């Protein structure tokens, strides 16, 4: 327990930890304030006016379609005018009232049910970036300054020391993420209450938000663990930052090579897409090369549905390899 206490103190004594956490809170607060300021709750009068405008536009579109049908029917077959219309005048598009959503004509208003998932994703990505940096500097600076060597003189149990550091960091990161996430959800619930719409918020919707939040927490913890492990492998914070640049270069290379080699769905090899799919549950990738697959002269792309389970397994393998390598290196490499 004494090592856990020491590592907790060390984590929060580090200025970068405080600076990054405060920075994240400020960015989130600024975003919430911007959302609050740029939205407003629609009054019954505004709703009535919007419905009226939607109806007016529908009627206008229906009238225009009627005129076009009359012109079509009046056009002599084979004439230049008839060429502007389909052979069968009944095929001319006729608008439906449902296609004119009155919400388009309302002032900007925050729809909790439809817009909050993007807020969860934003929160998770911001926290993941901070977690990566905090994790990397927490252990990277220790190695670089020689403080890790000092600690090992006191606790000559390498895996226990690195494991405790990682555990303490992830524990506090999980706590901070859950706490901030709850505050984030509460803030947007209030924004929707006062500057938006809370309609359709069934328990199922809240459950769906909760599950997305849990996946977001997983993303944050994985980013923190990978940043920590990379910096420990390289014994310097710079290793984790360099790995990010390296990953970008490798990803571009893989994407280009996959395209050249005719591999289908090269996007599936892009790690950022895994994060997206992990959060949003699925993404349909399309192959527009249309190798002989056509219908009526048009292209029917082949599709590949990437699910959050696939993204999760891929990410878990990467996480296990990186953290495992860091632990192995800690166990066998000399501390010079």
């Amino acid at each position, binding site marked *: 327990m*004494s*090592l856990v*206490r*020491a*590592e907790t*103190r*060390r984590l929060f*004594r*580090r*200025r970068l930890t405080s600076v990054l956490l405060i920075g994240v809170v400020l960015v989130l607060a600024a975003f919430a304030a911007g959302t609050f300021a740029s939205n407003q709750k629609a009054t019954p009068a505004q709703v009535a006016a919007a419905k009226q405008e939607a109806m007016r536009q529908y009627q206008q579109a229906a009238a225009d379609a009627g005129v076009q049908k009359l012109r079509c029917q009046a056009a002599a077959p084979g004439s230049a005018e008839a060429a502007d219309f389909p052979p069968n005048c009944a095929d001319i598009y006729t608008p439906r009232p449902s296609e004119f959503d009155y919400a388009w004509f309302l002032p900007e208003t925050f729809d909790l049910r439809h817009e909050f998932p993007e807020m969860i994703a934003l929160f998770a990505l911001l926290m993941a970036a901070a977690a990566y940096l905090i994790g990397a500097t927490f252990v990277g*600076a*220790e190695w670089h*300054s*020689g*403080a890790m*060597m*000092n*600690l*090992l*003189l*006191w*606790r*000559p*149990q390498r895996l226990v020391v690195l494991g405790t550091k990682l555990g303490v960091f992830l524990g506090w990161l999980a706590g901070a993420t859950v706490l901030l996430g709850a505050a984030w959800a509460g803030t947007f619930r209030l924004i929707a209450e006062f500057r938006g719409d809370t309609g359709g918020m069934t328990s199922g919707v809240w459950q769906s938000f909760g599950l997305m939040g849990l996946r977001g927490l997983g993303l944050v913890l994985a980013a923190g663990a990978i940043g920590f492990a990379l910096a420990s492998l390289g014994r310097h914070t710079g290793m984790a930052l360099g790995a990010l640049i390296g990953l970008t270069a490798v990803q571009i290379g893989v994407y280009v090579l996959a395209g050249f080699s005719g591999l289908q769905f090269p996007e599936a090899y892009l790690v950022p897409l895994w994060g997206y799919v992990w959060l949003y549950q699925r993404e349909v990738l399309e192959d527009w090369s249309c190798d002989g697959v056509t219908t009526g002269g048009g292209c029917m792309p082949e599709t590949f549905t990437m699910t959050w389970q696939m993204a999760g397994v891929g990410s878990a393998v990467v996480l296990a390899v990186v953290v495992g390598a860091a632990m192995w290196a800690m166990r*066998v490499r*000399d*501390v*010079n």
Partner: protein
Amino acid sequence: MTPVLEISGLRKTYRSRKGARNALDGFDMVVEAGQVHGFLGPNGSGKTTTLRTLLGLIQPDGGHMTLLGREVPRHLPEVAGRVGAIVESPQFFGRFTAETTLSLLADAGGVDRGRVPEVLDLVGLRDRAKEKVKTYSLGMKQRLAVASALLKKPTLLILDEPANGLDPGGIREMRTLMRDLSASGMTVLLSSHILAEIQLICDSVTIISAGRRITAGSVAEVLARHDSGAVRVRLEPDTDQEEAARILREAGAQVTVETAGQLTVRDVTGPAQITRLLAQREIYLCELTPIAADLEDVFLELTGTTPVEGHHRQVDENALAASQDGWGR
């Protein structure tokens, strides 16, 4: 006396693309309880590798080590609480204060944080305890390192170059501190290049070169083993220096004529024989001084690192390396 530290046949080879290098080549060392033991060797001889291996920072390729009667590195966690150590240059996270640095170590080692002010006072950093370590001079960092080693009230204190960066006053304070700690029953293993200090402080020494022990024992024994028995003789002015040398050579002594009126005499049974032989021929002395070897002479002789005029010695050049190809194989 009971040994608190025993090393036998310790081996460590560093491998790289340029080949293998034997940093430790069957090294042996014993440190008895309650002693201040000096650990000497030229740069790159394997001192720091030995200490790092002993403290679990480097994995040995062979050999046997015990600390406080327990085999290490297997049982190192059991004895680590009783071994205080600083290895090479002091290294700390620069943005923490000295107080925070030590209190974090105290927490990690399960030591009462209340001891932090005590050790900071002991090494003279009490008034600078709340300043960030990055603002410290090398000497102050060295003091902090010693404080961190003393924090656990160790039974065995291992100090690698503790006087690095210290001012003359600091070196003297460090010497006094070592003596006090030894007097309190603590065993101190002291690695240093300041040989005069070692000679003053230490009860015993081990000298290492090219990863091997080349001599060990009490300081007096080591010096005695390498005592040449030479005596410096200064004759009265206007004495026939050559005649005096001849008389002594006839008696079996080796005589070197130094500056005017001065001889260096070896292989005599004692100073009394010199005075008697010369007085019999009415040659009188005004000075007769035994030339005692000091640790520096012994060190330079044994390690083969005596400077030679016009030759720039490389770090891997020493007596053992030259004869045994200990490096760069």
